[in-house]
Structures are given as structure tokens and as C-alpha cells.
């Protein structure tokens, strides 16, 4: 499943004719919500020790995002499925009403 933020989705939520800055704000919010939802789902499957390890990785010198991703691939190889599921759910939520997304 793909989270496709296109004109159709924007039209569905009544933003088809909105000013560009509002469209951007919408996209921005959507991704923010998705990040949190995916993070929460991933954390449910991880132990405290694993999460502590993630904490350590994020304190490494240099670019921690690369190491973070490698860690994620190793510790939660199924993360893409979760990302996909949450993307699908988010689209459904958006279409059913923004309040459930942005509350």
C-alpha cells in the first residue's frame, strides 16, 4: 500500500483549492503523524534493551541517521510492513475525517 498524497487526496479532504501553504502544511502534518504512529508501532515490538541500544546509536558522533537505519534493519527487519500498514491506515483516517488524524 502506498500513501499517495496527490490532488485526489487533497480534493477528498477539501484542500484541492486551498492555498499552497495550506497544502504544504497538510503534507507536513501528515508525515509527522505517520512518523509518530510508525515509531509507536515499532517500539511495541522492541525490548527495553533494544530501545536503549537505539538511544546509544543516536549519541554516536557524526551522522546518526545512517547507523539508526542499519540498526532498524537489523532489529526490526519488518519495519517496511509496519510502515506500509500505518500508511494505509493513515489514508483511511484522513478520508474518514481529519479530526481522528490531528487530534
Amino acid at each position, binding site marked *: 500500500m*502506498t500513501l499517495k498524497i496527490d490532488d485526489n487526496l487533497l480534493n477528498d479532504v477539501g484542500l484541492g483549492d486551498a492555498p*499552497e*501553504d495550506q497544502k504544504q*502544511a497538510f503534507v*507536513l502534518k501528515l508525515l509527522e503523524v505517520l512518523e509518530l504512529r510508525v515509531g509507536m508501532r515499532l517500539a511495541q515490538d522492541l525490548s527495553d534493551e533494544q530501545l536503549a541500544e537505539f538511544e546509544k546509536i543516536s549519541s554516536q558522533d557524526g*551522522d546518526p541517521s*545512517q547507523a*539508526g537505519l542499519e540498526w532498524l534493519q537489523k532489529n526490526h527487519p519488518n519495519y*517496511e510492513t509496519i510502515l506500509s500498514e500505518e*500508511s494505509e491506515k493513515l489514508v483511511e483516517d484522513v478520508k474518514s475525517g481529519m479530526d481522528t488524524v490531528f487530534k
Partner: protein
Amino acid sequence: MSESAPTSSPDMPPKKDTLHVEGLHPAMQLSAVEELRSTQQELENRLVDTVDNKLDLAARAAKRREARAQFDDLIKEHLKINGITHDDPKFDEYVALLKDYSIDQIPQDLWEKGTLDDEGNIVPPMRLAVVDDLRAKYNPSSTSATPPPDPTATAPVAPPPPPAPKTSAEVKAIIDADPTVLNQRNLVASLQEELADLAAIRQGRFWSNKDTQAEYAQVEEEYRDAVAHLAKLELDAERAAGISRTETEERLDVAFKLVEQFKNLQEQTVEKLKGTAVGKFVTFMTSGGTVKRIIKGATIGVAAGAVGAAITLFTGGAGGALLAAGAVSAAAATKATAFARGYATFDNRQGRGMSVVTADGRDSEFNQKVLRLSGADGQNSEATIDLVNNFLLNKLENDTKVEQSKRKKAALKSLGAVAVGASLVELAHIGADIMGVGNQSSLQAAPHNSGISPDTDPHVPEGKVGGVVEHQVPSTPEKVYSVDALTIRPGEGWYETFKSLGIPKQEWASLLKETGPQLSQMQVNGHPLAYQMPNGQWGIRMTPDGKMPKEALDLISNTHAKLTGVPEVSTTHVTPAAEVTPDSTSTTPATPLHPAGTEAVPTAGGSLADAIQEAAAPSGQAGSITTLDVIQPSDVAGSAVLEKFTHVASWYSPDMFAQNLGLSFNEWNGLQTYIIDQTEAGNQLYQGVFTVNSDGDLRFTTNRIPTATMADILNHTPERIRTGA
């Protein structure tokens, strides 16, 4: 070749060591004590340096404690080397004294340099206090200026009159010289540092750690006892010194001292939080402009390989190109705001997740509130100490839990961001196709309505919307100083002025040494602006109107620039509105403001500044900074452009509002902190307009910002926003 010149002539008598205490054993002389401290410091440094990860505060604290556990042995060894063994009658006494003089009791900066207390009074270096202490103990005649009593004198006929009540300064001087109080203060300072370390570790963690919690509980208990003991010691000393005050005043004094102590603990904790794990990750992900952020996201995606375009952001048709470009910016900006909302907002707020103590005096509202909420109202001072102390430490514990909760949410977001970031490559690719990322000339173009602040490298989709690259022509900078810097408050010193100018604390002493003599040459109404105190420090002579001359601030600013090599004190000046010229290298049209078919949205930069100037100075004074001092609600209502800013869509985020104002990330953090503070403080202007949710996020609760609120917000935006400079 000749030897280097001797420091003193052999004909001259040896210079007397003024810090030598006659009759005192060499092992206890200042030089020997300092040698011991040096050994202690070396041991501590050696052990702490064995911790590989410099950010692992817990491990470093553990090593520090390990070193300090060996101090007793070092002290005994020191005495033994100097010929004092266990069977010496003075052995235990010396051990006890040397423990008090150890580096864990008296930090090196206090030992060497002394400090300024909260009222700006100089607390002398502790090494001198130690010499006085030793003299008092082992050679009292050398310090006593009072002649011995005459046994032949006749008794006075009448009892002497009661001593006049001492002033608070006199009482303070007596207490500050009390070695018992000083020792206890040092113990509190040491425990405070340790507790701040642990509080920072706890607040800085994504996830709780039982070991740290147990250690924290133990140190907190020690700190609680030490603070209470110090407060009682000081109370007793104040009473003994004959301080004159009512019971209520005494209770308020007691509470305020504890509040001040707590404030220090909070500040130390916040300071130690800098550079912790979460902070570092967030800093990385939120640093740089939009392009850099995209690259960071793209890097993750590339590493992930083909993720299968789990997220695809695009729009169809010609009209969608702008959104695609915007979406890239927004998606990248999301990484910033995701953290900013959950973490960085608090990270940058004073005190982060902690509700910061704002007491600024004994009678302050906060101080009274603490007395009331702690149940100390009407209690005696001794009970007040325990109640207030417990109340404040419980508050720290609550703050820690709140902060942990916020960080946990931020951590979850960061975890999700890593996963989502893997897909950002799709965005970057789409954006790259449209925008030609890598084409430097296009990267420099800036759409006026991108909604992205000027410091985030916005792009323009070629042929869809153009932008004018605005180059500010440098003009002679006129420094405009903050009201704080231009105002002299009673009792204020030059350090407060330096602070108002944004000069880092560590540069104050050298700067004052350099500028003091020059400032003393500056005269206001026939009096020098600076005067030298008996201790050699420079003070401010209050001017008749309480204003600090701008020339003095210029002198300080320029001298600071020379000393540090930094051109100017960056936060204290603005330049007059600069001319704007089209970029000769830009291939985009010169004046397109909005894409066809889109609403003209008020944007950052010139239009807002112009509107403000027009509204604030309708009589042709636009451009004068003076006219922009205060924007009135009527100015907002009277300007179509300003009024437009007051309309906010439902679900519109304050972040986007800030971007439309043209605020940079850091500027928005500053303004957001102000708005959150006003909202939480119940300022009527902000009630019903904003709310701060349980996560600490700022939200609109209306679609229309009242003009009075808008005016207040604009009055708290940086000068450059209002002037367009």
C-alpha cells in the same frame, strides 16, 4: 650564555609569604594543601578519563565517586609523608580539616577565583578563606585586631546599650564569613552538581533505567538533608547576628533562599542536558537548510535500498508541480518539525520540560505561591524549611517525569522518522527531477510563497513560479541595543550589561578589565560612568535618567569584537532597511509573487515589514526604527496585509504561521517560547487563541487571531522581521 635573571636580588631580604601561617605544621600550610588538592585532581581526572564515551555522564560520575572514595587515603598519605602519623595527637584533627579543603568539598574555581554571589557581592577565593580559617585555629593572635581585655579595668556602671540592628548587608557579611556555613554551602554545591548530573541523565534518556533511579534517589536524599541543614544554619546565623525582621518576612526569606537554590539546580540540570543523546540526534536531523535535510533523508533512503516507495508524494498535472516541490520542502521540514514539536521546542525553552522557577525576589508571586502550595503559610521558619524544600524537590521529580514523557514521544518520532526517512528518497528524487537539485543557480532562487523561512534554502520549480533572490546591500550598520542593555537598574553591575548584550559569560571578566578604564573616562553629567571599587572591580555609576549611554555600549561592543575577533555582538544590532536588488544571476522573473490560481498569502520579508512600517508610521516615517517600537492593535486592524495574517485555517499549525511571518527556525523557537509562556501564564491576550497540549505542543484554538494578540506577537518578533532589514 648568561643564566636567566634571578627574580630577586640576593641582597634583598626574602619576600614574606603572606599566606604562611606561623606555628602551623608544614603539612597544613596552604602550599601543602594545594599540593594535596592537585594530587586529588590528578587522580580524579585519570579515572574519569578512562571512560571512553565522554557523553556517558553516568559512567563519568561513577568514576568521579570512585576517585573521591580514595581521598581519605590520599590525605593520610599526605600527612604521613610530612611526618604526621596515626599516633600524632593532631592526626585526626588534620585529617578532618584536609577533608574539608579537598576538591570534592571546594571546587577549584571557587578555590582560586572566588565568585560573585547573587547580589553581585564578591566572595573571596576560598584558598584565602582557608588561610584565615587556619590562622584563626592555630595562630589566632595574628588575625585578631581586637586588643585583649584589660583585667584591671573597672566594670561599667551601666549595661551597654543594645547594639543597633544590623543591616542586611552586615548580616550577610557575617554569615558569609562563617566557616560552618561556608563548608555546608560547599557540600550543597557538590551534591547539587551530582544531583543535576543524575537528573540530566534521567531526563536525557529515552527510556528509564532502574539503576540510575536508585542512585538518583540516594543523592536526592543527601541533597535534601544538606539543603535543609544549610538553610537552618543560615537562619540561626542570621538570628544570632541580630537581623531585624518580622516572622512573615523571615518565612519569606527562608522560602526564597530555597527557591534560589532550586533555581540553581534547575539551571545546572538544563546545562548538563546539552549534548545528551536525544539532543544530539535531534540537532543533527534539524540542522541545516531544506536541501541539507533532504539530503539527510535521501541518505537514509539510499542506504535502505528500494523500499518500494512506501510513501510517494506527488501531484499530477502542471498545477501540481509546485506542491511537489513544496511537498519535498515540507517533507524535509517535517523532519524538523516532528522533532521540533516533540522535543526541540522544549529543548530550546528555558528549562526544557521543566516549569522554570521565575521568582525574582522575596515578595515575588512565585515565592508566595511556593509557600502556599507547600503548606508552609503560617508555619514557623524551621517547619517552612522542610516543607518548602520537600515541595521543590518533588517538583523536580514531577518535572523529570514530564520531561521523560516528552522525550519518549520524541524518541518514538525519531524511531519512526528513521523508517519514514528511508522513503524520503522518493521525495528527493521527485523533487530533484522537478527542481533540478544540484543546479546551484536554481538552488538560490527563493519563491516568495513557499512558506519556508528564508534560512531553509527553498526552491522554485522552474517555469511555475519565480522568485527574486534578495541580496541585501550592506550599509553602514547602526547598532540598536535592547532596552535591557540601555537601562541601568539600581545595584546592577557591568556584567548585567554584558549579559544584555549577549556576550558569553566566560568573556565578561576579560572584557571588563579592558573596558573598565575606558568607561571610567566616559562622563555623564560630570561624573565618570564607571568607578573602581576597593577590590579593583569596576562598578556602574547610576546615571540621572537611569539610561546607559549608547556610546558606552558601542565601546563595549567594539572592544568585545576586538578581543574575540567576532565582528559584532550579533544579537544586539539591526541594520537599517537594506536596499533590495534583483539577482543578476537569477533566470527567474523579477516580480512574480504568487502562482496563478493561488491565493496571495502574506509572506515573509519585505511585504510584512512594509506593511508594519506603513501601519506604524503612516506619516511617512517608514523605516525609522523608533516608529516600530510598539505595534498597536489599531495598526494591525488598519492594515490589510497585517490583518490577513490574523486568519488561520482550521488545523493550521503555528509553525506554518511562523513560516509565513518569515521567521527562521531559531527565531520561531524564541517567539514560540514567549507564546507558550503567555498562554500558560493565563495572559488574556492568548486565552482562546492558543493552547498548549499535554505534549507541550502549541496549537491554535481559533481561526482568527485577535488584533491585540497579533500586535503583541508582532512586537515580539525580531527587528529584522519588522524592518525588513
